[in-house]
Structure formats: structure tokens, C-alpha cells
């Protein structure tokens, strides 16, 4: 498993203190110099001919670490160890940080939290005098003497990497650098993804073939039933359409029976009944009021609407009123038995 943190750490190189030479330059506040300007102004001041340099700047100073060797090309970020030491002890007011490594004594001078100097000399050449000299040189009151182990390491933070990363874009090298950095994870990812898709596609095709076979078997087994079912659907639809067109209302016998039953109950008589599609026009003579006969006609369930068009006294039978009614039929509901069924 690739870890981006590990990849980044492999691309970071810490330059030991003893392999660098620090020079601190003052600069006006609020002025920020580009890396190119620093190189132009201070690059040639290196005590190491042909060596590279690393730099960073604060509000008032420029710190240039001259290296014995040229800078490494590519994606590697080089960070001077002296910078890391300073960052680590930045909270100390006055301090002298000592580290002895391979017979070389390196001393970092921190004054009021600012890195003032970096001194390197042979370890056996009077350490005490060196420290005394530095305290006097930089007027360090109550300077803290800090001795570091030769194997000391400092964590590199993102800010450190940003400070020293060469972010200058070189299109010609960019693709190469990206490929160098990403080739292994990219190849792995592409191979895994490709394998996954090939496997998944084969599996899916095989699964689809199995399902298709199973469907074909089911269809064969259900063939007779399916055919009957389609026949049933067809017949049902056919008769449903027929009924919807030809058997919407009760038949004429039901209509006439419903009407005559009500008239008889009222002791009345029918003079004329006309029927056309869904409408009846009736002339009837009854003794009771029109309201009662209308209510009873509606109660039969055969008729949807009953309207009184005219009423008059029967001149031949004075006890009877002659009513002219217009009646609309109620459509048959599906649960009423009918001759043709769907």
C-alpha cells in the first residue's frame, strides 16, 4: 500500500549543518524577494565554488545556506538542518545550540528568537572559547547552551517543505517529474482497475447467460399457460369493450318494470312512455304528489335523474294529476348481473 506521506518523505533531503555555510542579510521590511533575485544578489557570495544554495526570508532578514554541492535536480526538496534547528528553538530568547558530528562542532546562535549565525569548526579546538567568543560577539545575556545528540532528527512540516520547495515550473521537466513520482501507483492502479473490470465483465456476462437460459426454461414451462392467459386477456378486453358500448344501461324490461311498479304502488296509470337511448319521457296519472313519485323512482336504482316537465289535472279523472316526467337512466354498475359478461 502506498502512503503519500512516505512518498513525500522520500523526496525530502535534510542537509546537515556542517555541510552548509550560513550568511544572514538584512532587508527592508515589507519587501519580499523572489528566489531568482536572491540568487542574483547573493548566489555568487558562496564560499563553495560550484555549490548551490538554499534560502528563506523573514520580515527583516534573508538567510542563505551555501552548500558544498549543487542542488539536486528533480522533485527532491532540500532543507538545511540549521533552519529546522532554528525553527525548533525559536521560542528561546538567547541560545547557543551545539551539535558535534564526525569531529565537527556546529553552533547555532539564536538571539531574541532570531537566527544570527552558524559556526562550524573542528570539535577539539576549544569549545569553551568559541562559545565565549560568540556570546560576546552577539551580546548574549544568560544564553542557554543546548547540546544536541549527533543523531538528532527534526520533523519536517508542510510549511518547511513549502519554504524550500522549488516551485518554479519547468514544463519540460514537469511531466518527467510527475511520471517519476506517480509511475508506480499509477501502474498499480491501472492494472488493478483493468483486472477488476475484465473480471467483472466476464462475471456479468456469465451471470447474464445463466439468467437468460433460466428465463428461456421458465418460458417453455409456462408456454401453454402464457398462451391461455393472453387469450383470456384478449377475450376479456373484447367483451369489456362490447359491454361498454352496448350494455351501458339497464335493459328495457327492467326500465319498464321499475316504472310500472312505482306507478302501481301509487294507484296510478301510464298514458304514454317514450324511450330513446338513456332517456324516458313519461305521461302518468297519479293521486299523490309529484315529490313522492320522484323519490320512489330514484329509490329503484334504475333511474339517475327525474324531472317534472309539466303537471295538470286529468279532465276525465278529477282525482288524478297528470304528470309529464323526463327521466335519465342510471348506468349499470359492474356488480349488477347483466346478460353479457366480461
Amino acid at each position, binding site marked *: 500500500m502506498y502512503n503519500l506521506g512516505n512518498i513525500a518523505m522520500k523526496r525530502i533531503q535534510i542537509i546537515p549543518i556542517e555541510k552548509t555555510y550560513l550568511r544572514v542579510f538584512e532587508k527592508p521590511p515589507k519587501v519580499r524577494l523572489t528566489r531568482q533575485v536572491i540568487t542574483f544578489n547573493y548566489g555568487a557570495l558562496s564560499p563553495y565554488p560550484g555549490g548551490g544554495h538554499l534560502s528563506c526570508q523573514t520580515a527583516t532578514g534573508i538567510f542563505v545556506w551555501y552548500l558544498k554541492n549543487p542542488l539536486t535536480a528533480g522533485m527532491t526538496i532540500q532543507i538545511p538542518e540549521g533552519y529546522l534547528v532554528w525553527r525548533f528553538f525559536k521560542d528561546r530568547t538567547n541560545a547557543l545550540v551545539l551539535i558535534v558530528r564526525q569531529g565537527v562542532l556546529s553552533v547555532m546562535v539564536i538571539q531574541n528568537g532570531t537566527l544570527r549565525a552558524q559556526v562550524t569548526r573542528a570539535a577539539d579546538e576549544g569549545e569553551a572559547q568559541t562559545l565565549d567568543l560568540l556570546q560576546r560577539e552577539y551580546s548574549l545575556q544568560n544564553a542557554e547552551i543546548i547540546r544536541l545528540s549527533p543523531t538528532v532528527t527534526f520533523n519536517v512540516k508542510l510549511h518547511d517543505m513549502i519554504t524550500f520547495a522549488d516551485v518554479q515550473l519547468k514544463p519540460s521537466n514537469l*511531466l*518527467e517529474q510527475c*511520471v*517519476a513520482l506517480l*509511475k508506480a501507483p*499509477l*501502474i498499480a492502479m*491501472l*492494472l488493478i*482497475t*483493468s483486472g477488476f*473490470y*475484465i473480471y*467483472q*465483465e466476464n462475471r*456479468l*456476462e456469465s*451471470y*447474464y447467460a445463466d*439468467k*437468460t437460459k*433460466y*428465463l428461456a426454461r*421458465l*418460458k417453455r*414451462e*409456462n408456454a401453454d*399457460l*402464457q398462451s*391461455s*392467459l393472453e*387469450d*383470456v386477456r384478449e*377475450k*376479456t378486453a*373484447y*367483451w369489456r*369493450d*362490447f359491454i361498454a*358500448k*352496448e*350494455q351501458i344501461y339497464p*335493459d*328495457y*324490461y327492467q326500465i*319498464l*318494470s321499475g316504472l*310500472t311498479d312505482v306507478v302501481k304502488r301509487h294507484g296510478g296509470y*301510464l*298514458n*304514454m*312512455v*317514450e*324511450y*330513446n*337511448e338513456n332517456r324516458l319521457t313519461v305521461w302518468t296519472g297519479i293521486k299523490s304528489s309529484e315529490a313522492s313519485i320522484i323519490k320512489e323512482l330514484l329509490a329503484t336504482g334504475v333511474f339517475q335523474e327525474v324531472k317534472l316537465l309539466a303537471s295538470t289535472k286529468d279532465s276525465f279523472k278529477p282525482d288524478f294529476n297528470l304528470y309529464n316526467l323526463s327521466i335519465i337512466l342510471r348506468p349499470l354498475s359492474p356488480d349488477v348481473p347483466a*346478460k*353479457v*359478461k*366480461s
Partner: protein
Amino acid sequence: MDRSLLIVLVITAAFIFYIKPAREKGEQTRMRLSVVESQIATQEAIKRGSADFKKRVEATGKTATTNETYLYPSKTSASLALVDLQDFVKSTATATKMEITTSTWGEPVVDGTTGMTRIPMTFMLKGVPADVDQFLQKLLYGNKFIKIERASVSRLQDQLLVLNLSLVAFKRGGTP
């Protein structure tokens, strides 16, 4: 470095030209699979409910057969259907003591919706109310599906009614 770049390029090309189409094909296969699975579900439901389906098929078949008997078959010509309808109305009228005063043949028409031929006739009859009741009952609840489309009943004398009927019977098929 060049070799690494070449490997990356080759694999990327393979991804674009082989894996990407394969993935798209996979999507299509998934869609086809969902259709097949839904068809399988339908077929399994049919298989599970085969007993119920058979009952339903039988019941519908019986209803359809019964319905068919109420119509004139397709092989019967429209003219013969008219003759048969007139004979049926006459015999029903005789059986119920009704008197047919006039009978008129209509023009058979093919119904565009149902595909059936409508066999229309009109009759004028005379009879007393009890006979009218018997006549209509036998006419409408007999062996054929007869629909009365228009009608009028009026009193001729004290107990004698005049019945005008426009009725229609149905014939399977659209050949008059």
C-alpha cells in the same frame, strides 16, 4: 524514465481503448440483466399461481362461450340473421298473445369499434299490459342478446297498448 513513461502510456491507452468500452458494455449488460430479471419475476409469478391462472382461464373461457351463444355466428349471413330475428319476435309475440301490426327490416351495419354487425329491426305491436310484460321478458331474456334502442308505449283503448320497438341483435364478424 523513458521506459516508465512508455509503460504508463501503454497501460493508459489500454485503459482508454479496452477498459472504457468494456465498462460501457458492462453498463449495457446490467440494463439487459435488469430486463431479464423482471421477466423472470413475471414468469415465476405465473408458475407459482398456475392453479389460479388455470381457474381464471377456464372461467373466462366459459363466460366467453356463453356470450358467443347470444350472438349470431359469423358464418350466418346478415339476411338470415334478420329472418331469424323476425321469426323469433313473431313466435314470441304469438306465445304471449301480442299482435304484430308491422315489422320493418333495417340495414345491417358493421360496428367499427366492436367489429360486430348490428342487425336492426322495428316492430309495432298491440297487446294488454300483462302480455306486453310477458313479451318483453321473453324477448330480452331469450337465447339471443337483443337490445331495444328506442321504444314507445301508448294507450290505444282502455286496456289495449300499442308498442313501438326499434331493436337490434348482433352478429359476429363484419361480413353483412
